[in-house]
């Protein structure tokens, strides 16, 4: 039996942006449901520990996440966890119909008058030699293991944290708080103290946070390698060693100064974030490309959170990478506008929303400043072997992608048709950045290369669940 819900506003994602949007919509008088894939509300930012004795049980991020979920619930929001939206479509009356899978097994069909997408961000995975070896994980994955697991990394051996961007420091801080030894910290960029000081002088509220990150990076005990890159992960059936090299003046690693780190069990690697745009793209909203915002993102009016499609709002990272505070602010704005639109009321009081928009602009300004301090790498300055895998789901190699491009593939979609890269369970989320980088090498700009077009189901879903949810939708029209 398929569960059915009828609401004024549906919110996809229960991270900082989604919870703020859901609460604001409910406070605006709307009936609201908020859906999240994970077992606990909070998203990646507020991720909740599973173990009562966790050192993270009382951290501000965990407590504020619990408070945000509680506040949303007391405002009347129904939060459904372990609920993954696998399709969204517009309805004849101008509303939206969502098809979801609950706990991996049950179909759920939701009718909503307006929709707020707060689907968040994912790490931008950039391939490097050896990146598919077990033990090589995302920086966010390491953080999740430490915060939600036992507090220790499960794989014995040294831990190496590498990549680029401010998030790496946050992960090093997690290592320090967990008491998990971190052997090496490898950051591609060299921090510019003067530019950092200028940015912090404009955003004094961030000063304590910045000092805390620096202090905890030292406290982690890691040997720090700024201006270095991981050039290779080595091992037979699992990660055993990592090679790093300093970056020379041309931005490439110096092959004469490669250093090998032996006895490595975990390499956590992160080169920044990209918006998760499958839902907004499936609905045909306008998207733009901006490297400082993580690449492809849903375009919204910052004053309302409205996308180019009537009744569709987007909040937080999906509208451009910026972190938790822009997410919360844009969530409140989008949620209150989505509620007013759903209930046929006038736009929310400008006296309330205008200060939020001003705060949002400041928070976005800080995010822009950080992106300028750590410009996202479009690609890694490494030479991959022709047999290196780019598409992990379908085992598609660099040589196969290059052959497709040489044959005339000029967009992501063409590479997919030629090679199956992006056709597997991840639907191109993981290989997308690498394919775009290859197309760029061949002279196609990312704007022209496009992204993997979403289709039904957005996420792998058991067929009986797909059938049941779609049948319920047809029955309700």
């Amino acid at each position: 039996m398929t569960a059915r819900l009828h609401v004024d506003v549906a919110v996809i994602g229960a991270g900082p942006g989604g919870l703020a949007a859901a609460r604001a919509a409910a406070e605006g008088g709307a009936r609201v449901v908020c859906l999240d894939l994970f077992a606990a509300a909070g998203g990646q930012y507020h991720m909740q520990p599973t173990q009562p004795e966790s050192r993270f049980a009382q951290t501000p991020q965990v407590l504020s996440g619990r408070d945000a979920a509680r506040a949303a619930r007391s405002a009347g929001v129904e939060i459904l966890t372990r609920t993954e939206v696998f399709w969204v479509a517009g309805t004849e009356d101008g509303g939206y119909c969502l098809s979801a899978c609950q706990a991996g097994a049950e179909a759920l069909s939701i009718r909503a008058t307006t929709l707020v997408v707060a689907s968040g961000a994912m790490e931008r995975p950039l391939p490097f030699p050896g990146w598919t070896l077990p033990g090589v994980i995302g920086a966010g994955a390491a953080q999740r293991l430490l915060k939600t697991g036992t507090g220790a990394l499960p794989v014995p051996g040294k831990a190496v944290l590498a990549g680029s961007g401010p998030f790496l420091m946050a992960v090093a801080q997690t290592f320090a708080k967990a008491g998990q030894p971190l052997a090496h910290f490898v950051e591609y960029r060299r921090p510019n103290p003067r530019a950092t000081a200028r940015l912090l002088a404009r955003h004094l509220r961030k000063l304590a946070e910045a000092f805390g990150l620096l202090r905890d990076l030292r406290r982690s005990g890691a040997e720090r390698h700024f201006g270095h890159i991981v050039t290779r992960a080595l091992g037979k059936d699992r990660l055993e060693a990592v090679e790093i090299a300093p970056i020379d003046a041309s931005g490439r690693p110096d092959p004469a100064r490669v250093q090998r780190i032996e006895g490595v069990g975990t390499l956590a690697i992160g080169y920044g974030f990209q918006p998760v745009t499958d839902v907004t793209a499936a609905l045909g909203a306008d998207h733009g490309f901006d490297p400082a915002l993580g690449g492809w993102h849903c375009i919204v009016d910052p004053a309302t959170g409205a996308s180019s499609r009537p009744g569709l709002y987007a909040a937080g990272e999906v509208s451009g990478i910026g972190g938790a505070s822009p997410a919360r602010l844009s969530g409140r704005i989008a949620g209150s506008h989505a509620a007013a639109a759903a209930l046929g009321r006038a736009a929310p009081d400008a006296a309330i929303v205008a200060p939020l928009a001003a705060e949002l602009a400041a928070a976005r300004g800080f995010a822009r400043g950080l992106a300028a301090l750590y410009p996202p790498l479009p690609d890694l300055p490494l030479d991959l072997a022709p047999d290196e895998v780019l598409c992990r789901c379908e085992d598609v190699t660099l040589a196969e992608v290059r052959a497709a491009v040489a044959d005339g593939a000029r967009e992501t979609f063409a590479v997919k048709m030629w090679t199956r890269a992006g056709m597997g369970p991840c639907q191109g989320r993981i290989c997308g950045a690498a394919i775009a980088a290859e197309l760029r090498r061949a002279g196609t700009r990312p704007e022209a290369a496009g992204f993997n077009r979403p289709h039904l189901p957005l996420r792998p879903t058991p067929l009986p669940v797909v059938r049941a949810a779609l049948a319920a939708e047809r029955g309700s029209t």
Partner: protein
Amino acid sequence: MSEDRTIGVILDGVPSRCAEGLPLTSLLAARAPGWRASPRAGAPRGMFCGMGLCFECMVEVDGRPARACLETAREGMKIRTATGPGAGS
């Protein structure tokens, strides 16, 4: 430490004990960081993104396909991996 908060699961046919609610990725990676083989090359794979998007950590939980990074250990849970002992049986 005083009370036993561990629960019993069956991991690839072998009864094992772990903390209740522990993410399956922690449980599996403690055995070995890889528990899948890639589809064409048969190369070893394990958890990668850790947040439900890459599907590299797929396992079978109580007979259903599941992402290990989204699952937490429950009493009596049967977990089967693609490359564990007894795989393919």
